[in-house]
């Protein structure tokens, strides 16, 4: 197949009159100060009389707390308070993390500090607050806790066996949630297939390892009877609601402030027992209390994710038609479902997403989510997508190999065609408009697929084993209230932006979706500048303060661009219209004869500059005496947006990985990675590229390196940075990214999300590449992470 020259994609329609920034890659306004070490992260903040908390955490997977003797600890230098679960239960309510729309889901009440029992290694039991962290840690060594070991549930495969102890007897068993789906006629389809391929996929439990650990400062002011929390968090309004609720104080008495966040990826969107404990301690002391999780405690207290065992099958005809998928997913979570988004969502998404890109008509799925005495799990970048994509794409490659078809070709034959939309996937998910075919075509050219295949073949002759792996993916973004709201969780699916013209002609925009490094503040600046008609340098974006911004959902499920961005666009347009109203009155012209253009008001026809925004501001704010008495300038406007057309706006993409496997050592060298991504209208191409790259490497981490390892007693064996392996620079490939833009019609902006798709597809692409490399050696690996030992075993070398 020859390489054809790309014709330039059809340009999306302009959104604004003078489109300068949307669709381009100006530098992020916040990059300069971050490059100078001028960030403001929670641990940088020092408040008067601020104290520090450390937690005594359970050293074992399951124990009964018999007695806590705080006296020696209390007497240590600098110690202000030693508190246990009973102390905190007096002021903080317990919670139960379930969602109404996940029918049979159950979980037990959880407290900020464990009461009678600790149920996982790392669960906080006692809090010590001291003047400094070091003093609190010194005191920790003198805290005496008498505990009694209890049998622990540490194997998800036996969690439901009758002889396995039930962690919460009142729940009846260790089953958190189960779901079955049966669509079409799977048995008939599989019986009629030419080939049925079956295998078991394993995904190792792993965790986020944000470089800035979880941290917060809780500041209860008894004078104001008000709580302020500085939090490294993704959803300040959600936390505001939870603090108010759990502590029975008014919502208006709680302010949550999120300044710079040193990476979050979902780890920091959940409500941890530590969070509530720190607030309680501040209330008890009447002083600010800071909690910074150190790295060792992060490994056992940050949420974990992605521990799945999936038995799956695919039915295929010799001509390449995929008839159906079947899968049985077992996932082991912690002893409690995590608050408030629940630990069943990840598995639920696997059920929804397996087979996603394809047009088969038969699908059967089963999911069991089981409790264990291990660190609780919850949403982490990609949430179920990496598992679903690996299962799907791994099976598709098995099918391709069985019928002797090229992996790119089998995908071409089976993806839902680009002109089939809107339509539904077989699991019931609704698609507005995807571009699998266009993405496959683009990928083929981008990576020069034929040349790579030729290179692979030539090198195989020399005993060098390279592999090419393809992964097609779908990814949910821009969620509606169908995700959480319907289940009773007070997590906003709508967001708002306030745009204000300031007296000097600047534009300030307050947005309810915040910034954790992905560049939301940058794209909001771009959108606002274009929408109002000013230079980017004239726009200031404010996020992350519940006292200041509109009410909203924050960052999760890749919604910052699509939902936050839309609110900014609408607010910017509305402000522009109001500015023109004021200008029209001042200039005694009709508003439709005028334009806001780069900070000035100009005549729409002649383009002559008539006045400046600074002058409009001056008159509006300071010279109301010069305006008609029946006219009031409104130079501050707020607009909200919720995506209500679909439960989610799905995106799609395709990735490819090129690897070399050393059959002597089992080591895999990642030579290159490609991604073609359709996230609708791209607001800043460079930022999207960088989100894709970062997300891909995070996915590679789970595929190649990262796993929380346990002994038989449920103790984590590698809870430190030396033994838990995260991707570092040397082993990562260069990553080439290209875009297709299929805008969503659910908003004017047309932007879909881009933050998680990279993680969704990378493990599948790498797995398929490794197995493509191993194919001539009759070996395959389906268990992530793909360690050298697993590969050597598959090869029969050990």
């Amino acid at each position, binding site marked *: 197949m020859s390489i054809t020259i790309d014709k330039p994609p059809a340009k999306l329609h302009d959104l604004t009159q003078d489109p300068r920034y949307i669709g381009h890659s100006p*530098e*992020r306004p*916040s*990059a*300069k100060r*971050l*490059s*100078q*070490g*001028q*960030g*403001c*992260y929670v*641990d*940088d903040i020092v408040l008067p009389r601020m104290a520090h908390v450390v937690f005594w955490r359970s050293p074992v997977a399951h124990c009964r707390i018999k007695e806590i003797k705080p006296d020696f600890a209390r007497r240590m*230098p600098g110690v202000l308070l030693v508190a246990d679960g009973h102390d905190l239960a007096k002021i903080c309510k317990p919670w139960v993390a379930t969602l109404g729309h996940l029918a049979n889901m159950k979980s037990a009440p959880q407290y900020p500090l464990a009461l009678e029992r600790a149920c996982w290694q790392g669960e906080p039991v006692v809090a010590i607050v001291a003047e400094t962290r*070091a003093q609190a840690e010194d005191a920790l060594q003198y805290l005496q806790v008498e505990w009694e070991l209890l049998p622990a549930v540490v194997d998800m495969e036996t969690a439901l066996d009758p002889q396995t102890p039930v962690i919460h007897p009142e729940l009846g068993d260790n089953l958190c949630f189960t779901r079955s789906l049966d669509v079409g006629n799977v048995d008939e389809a599989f019986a009629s297939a030419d080939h049925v391929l079956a295998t078991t996929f394993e995904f190792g439990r792993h965790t*986020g*390892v*944000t*470089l*800035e*650990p979880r941290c917060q400062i809780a500041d209860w002011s008894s004078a104001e009877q008000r709580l302020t929390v500085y939090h490294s968090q993704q959803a300040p309004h959600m936390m505001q609601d939870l603090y108010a609720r759990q502590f029975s104080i008014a919502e208006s008495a709680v302010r949550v402030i999120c300044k*710079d*966040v*040193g*990476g*979050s*990826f979902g780890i920091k969107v959940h409500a941890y027992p530590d969070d509530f404990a720190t607030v309680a301690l501040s209330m008890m002391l009447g002083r600010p209390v800071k909690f910074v999780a*150190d*790295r060792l405690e992060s490994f056992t207290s940050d949420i974990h994710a992605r521990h799945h065992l999936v038995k799956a099958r695919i039915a295929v005809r010799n001509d390449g038609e995929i008839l159906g998928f079947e899968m049985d997913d077992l996932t082991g979570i912690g002893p409690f479902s995590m608050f408030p988004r629940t630990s069943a969502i990840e598995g639920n998404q696997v059920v929804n997403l397996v087979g996603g890109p394809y047009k088969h008509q038969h699908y059967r799925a089963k999911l069991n989510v089981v409790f264990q005495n291990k660190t609780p799990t919850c949403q982490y970048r990609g949430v179920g997508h990496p598992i679903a994509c690996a299962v799907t794409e791994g099976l598709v490659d098995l099918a391709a190999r069985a019928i002797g078809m090229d992996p790119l070709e089998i995908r071409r034959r089976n993806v839902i065609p680009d002109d089939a939309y809107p339509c539904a996937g077989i699991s019931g998910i609704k698609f507005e408009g995807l571009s699998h075919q266009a993405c496959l075509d683009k990928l083929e050219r981008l990576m020069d697929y034929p040349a790579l295949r030729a290179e692979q073949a030539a090198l195989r002759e020399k005993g060098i084993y390279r592999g090419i792996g393809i992964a097609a993916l779908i990814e949910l973004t821009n969620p509606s209230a169908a995700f959480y709201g319907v289940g009773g969780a007070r997590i906003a699916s709508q967001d708002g932006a306030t745009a204000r013209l300031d007296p000097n002609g600047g534009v300030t925009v307050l947005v309810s979706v915040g910034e*954790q*490094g*992905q*560049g939301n503040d940058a794209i909001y600046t771009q959108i606002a500048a274009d929408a109002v008609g000013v230079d980017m340098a004239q726009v200031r974006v404010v996020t992350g303060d519940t006292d200041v911004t509109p009410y909203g959902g924050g960052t999760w499920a890749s919604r910052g661009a699509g939902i936050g961005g839309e609110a900014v666009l609408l607010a910017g347009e509305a402000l522009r219209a109001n500015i023109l109203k004021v200008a029209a009155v001042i200039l005694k012209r009709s508003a439709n004869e005028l334009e806001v253009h780069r900070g000035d008001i100009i005549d729409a026809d002649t383009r002559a500059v008539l006045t400046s925004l600074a002058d409009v501001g001056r008159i509006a704010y300071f010279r109301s005496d010069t305006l008609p008495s029946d006219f009031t300038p409104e130079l501050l406007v707020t607009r909200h947006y919720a995506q209500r057309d679909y439960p989610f706006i799905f995106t799609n993409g395709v990735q490819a990985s090129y690897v070399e496997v050393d059959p002597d050592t089992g080591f895999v060298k990642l030579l290159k990675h490609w991604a073609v991504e359709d996230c609708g209208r791209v607001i800043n191409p*460079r*930022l999207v590229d*960088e989100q894709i*790259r*970062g*997300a*891909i*490497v*995070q996915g590679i981490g789970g595929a190649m390196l990262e796993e929380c390892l346990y002994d038989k007693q449920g103790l984590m064996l590698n809870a*430190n*940075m*030396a033994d838990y392996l*995260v*991707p*570092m*620079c*040397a*082993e*990562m490939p*260069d*990553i080439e990214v290209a875009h297709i833009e299929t805008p969503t019609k659910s908003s004017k902006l047309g932007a879909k999300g881009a933050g998680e798709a*990279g993680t969704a597809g990378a493990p599948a692409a790498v797995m398929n590449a490794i197995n493509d490399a191993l194919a001539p050696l009759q070996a395959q690996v389906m268990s992530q992470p793909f360690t050298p030992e697993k590969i050597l075993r598959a090869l029969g070398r050990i």
Partner: protein
Amino acid sequence: MADLQTIRFNINGQTHSCSVPPRLHLVDMLRDEVGLKGSHLGCEHGVCGACTVEVNGRIVRGCLTLAVQADGCQVRTVEGLAALPDARQLQQAFIKHNALQCGFCTPGMLMAARELIQHKPDATREEVREWMSGNYCRCTGYHAIVDAVCEVLARRNQESAA
């Protein structure tokens, strides 16, 4: 209770003295005693590199250096980089390539990159990747960081050839 030790050192071109307990590590001292918050803590095991600072012209792990060991030394942190032309080149390249997202690893990355461009001006892309492997980033996936450092190397080689 250990005796406090008085230390005197030069930080970003200014002399500073303070009394510290021996157990206080260099980064905690810089952050808490001197008030320079730009160097960060990510692990305190010496693995993540977020605490990388420069002592007597060489990068070190601030979490694996005691403040008392810095007595009499020249210390440089990210806050002192904007005054240096080679560091500014790196900062500008990082911004241009969006080689930073959340910014938490960035001070350490810049420190490490600066020592590279000083000591290994002919580094290949692969050598840049190897050198920068001492600094963990979760956001970028490293590609843009490598691009930024390679661009600075190329530009400096051009400048010195001219």
